[in-house]
């Protein structure tokens, strides 16, 4: 069996599962946030359930529109806080206590290899980077999980993506990810699992691997999993003392197909409007002016991302007429970025820093685009209207490319920016 089949077999108390089989899995952790949570809570009450199945396995994270931007969102937040109180939920990360949910989950020790984790958010697949089977579900299905601790899954076909080659300078895990999204397509892995492996992935940091797993859903995938190794175990064991069993694919595991990707000569990549799989090497993007840059989100708001962006920006100023918004993905990352002098470097360059939250990624607040504006963003979606006006344009790229573009005011290859000594 492959890693996904083995995890689903364990979670459903079976020796073996087969492709296409519908199984009922025991859920190890279930996460909601401030935008999908209120609907999950409403459904939970409508079902007539009184008590959640396990108050230690539920994680509630305020991150989408925090602090509240309007009376309506403030009321939603109150609904969530009341539920946490009533149900005595043990893991609650309110404003200023956590950050972006998909960063906070692993950072605070709620993700372990071999587990089955569901979240009422599509980017829940991020935790695949830790060898967990993690997937996004809707609010009412989450209500059913809150009531029963179980959920059905169809055992998926799995595509193995084998990535090899040493990454060229200034070419990052985001560029690898965008390249793969372009190859597989926005619907290339619908209902399927993706397993990422190969020497490039082994060489990546845990942070880098999270970018790949995070964007698995942009190919339609149910999960984007990476076998745990020593780096995974070091990260996880530093953050949880609960026991877990790492799971790997069997040597004779079967896959629907294997996709080989060589990144030795990869250029920085850009997904141009209005589709995530509309990916081009930066040399083919052309002369595109930008009004805004965004560095942050569950895809690329980690310390490694802030470091690579600040390296490009160091000693430089962003172009006149450009706003650069930087949002560290968690309180921990924010503090480390302060210690490392990254926040000062961003502010010296003319960037503005936001509190850890999802920010403008989903067009909620903190950097919404006007009609006709263009934004280069380290986030994950460039759909029509995603970051504001339906007549705005979103380009997806690495934090380094966003930084380089903010300096020139046009989409710019970070390798062409002269580094300060």
């Amino acid at each position, binding site marked *: 069996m492959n890693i996904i089949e083995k995890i689903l077999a364990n979670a459903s108390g079976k020796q073996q599962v087969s492709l296409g089989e519908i199984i009922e899995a025991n859920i190890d952790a279930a996460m909601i946030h401030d*935008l999908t949570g209120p*609907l999950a809570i409403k459904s939970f009450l409508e*079902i007539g359930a009184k008590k959640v199945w396990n108050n230690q396995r539920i994680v509630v994270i305020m991150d989408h529109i925090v602090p509240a931007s309007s009376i309506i969102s403030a009321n939603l937040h109150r609904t969530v806080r009341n539920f946490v109180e009533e149900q005595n939920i043990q893991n609650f990360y309110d404003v200023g206590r956590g950050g972006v949910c998909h960063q906070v989950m692993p950072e605070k020790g709620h993700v372990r290899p071999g587990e089955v984790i569901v979240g009422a958010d599509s980017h829940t697949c991020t935790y695949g980077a830790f060898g967990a089977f993690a997937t996004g579900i*809707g609010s009412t299905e989450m209500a059913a999980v809150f009531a029963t601790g179980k959920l059905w899954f169809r055992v998926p076909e799995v595509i193995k993506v084998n990535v090899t080659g040493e990454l060229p300078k200034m070419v990052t895990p985001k560029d690898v990810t965008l390249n793969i999204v372009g190859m597989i397509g926005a619907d290339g892995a619908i209902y399927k699992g993706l397993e990422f492996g190969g020497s490039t992935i082994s060489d990546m940091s845990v942070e880098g691997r999270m970018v790949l797993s995070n964007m698995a859903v942009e190919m339609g995938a149910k999960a984007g999993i990476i076998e745990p190794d020593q780096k995974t175990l070091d990260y996880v064991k530093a953050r949880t003392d609960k026991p877990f069993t790492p799971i790997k694919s069997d040597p004779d595991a079967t896959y629907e197909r294997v996709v080989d990707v060589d990144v030795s000569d990869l250029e920085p990549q850009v997904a141009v409007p209005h589709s995530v799989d509309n990916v081009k090497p930066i040399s083919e993007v052309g002369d595109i002016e930008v009004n805004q840059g965004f560095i942050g989100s569950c895809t690329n708001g980690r310390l490694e991302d802030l470091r690579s962006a600040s390296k490009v920006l160091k000693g430089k100023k962003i172009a006149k007429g450009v706003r650069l918004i930087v949002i560290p993905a968690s309180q921990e990352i924010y503090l480390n970025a302060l210690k490392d002098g990254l926040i000062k470097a961003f502010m010296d360059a003319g960037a503005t820093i936001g509190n850890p939250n999802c920010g403008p990624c*989903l067009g909620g607040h903190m950097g919404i685009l006007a009609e006709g504006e263009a934004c280069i963003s380290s986030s994950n979606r460039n*759909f029509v*209207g995603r970051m504001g006006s339906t007549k705005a344009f979103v380009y997806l790229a690495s934090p380094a490319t966003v930084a380089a573009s903010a300096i020139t005011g046009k989409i710019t290859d970070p390798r062409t920016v002269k580094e300060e000594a």
Partner: protein
Amino acid sequence: MTIEGKAIKFGDNIDTDVILPGPYLVHTDPHELAKHAMAGLDPEFPEKAADGVIVVGGKNFGCGSSREQAPIALKYSGVNCVLAESFARIFYRNAITIGLPVLVCKGVSVQVEEGDVLVVDLQTGKVENRTTGSVLEATRLPEFIMEILDDGGLIEHLKRRIETNE
């Protein structure tokens, strides 16, 4: 169960950000959500859908965010069924959960034109185009999904199962 309605067509990769843009996620009333259904593509959609329609999509319908508010907005705006070449996984599960029938129907995006009158038989998967006289075969839904739809969605289904000790 049969569903009849005029077709409103959309293309490939219709994402949940255009079905229900992020700023409207703060609403919890389904009727308020319905006012913004498809706001990212056609702000007049709720008016067109009000009398009951069938949405026809291409491949990967409902991709993107896990927001259950997207199928809710469609359902309450007057969409009685969605037929598409393929669906994104979370949207598909969410639609069933909230009681909006969704069927994979190969060829539907080319064989149905905007405004065609369709009759969908959920039990058999037969899709009859009353305007052209052609008949398409959609993939039939499994029995346990039909039960959820018959009950009107997962909440009513779970309530019934709890009440009857099933």
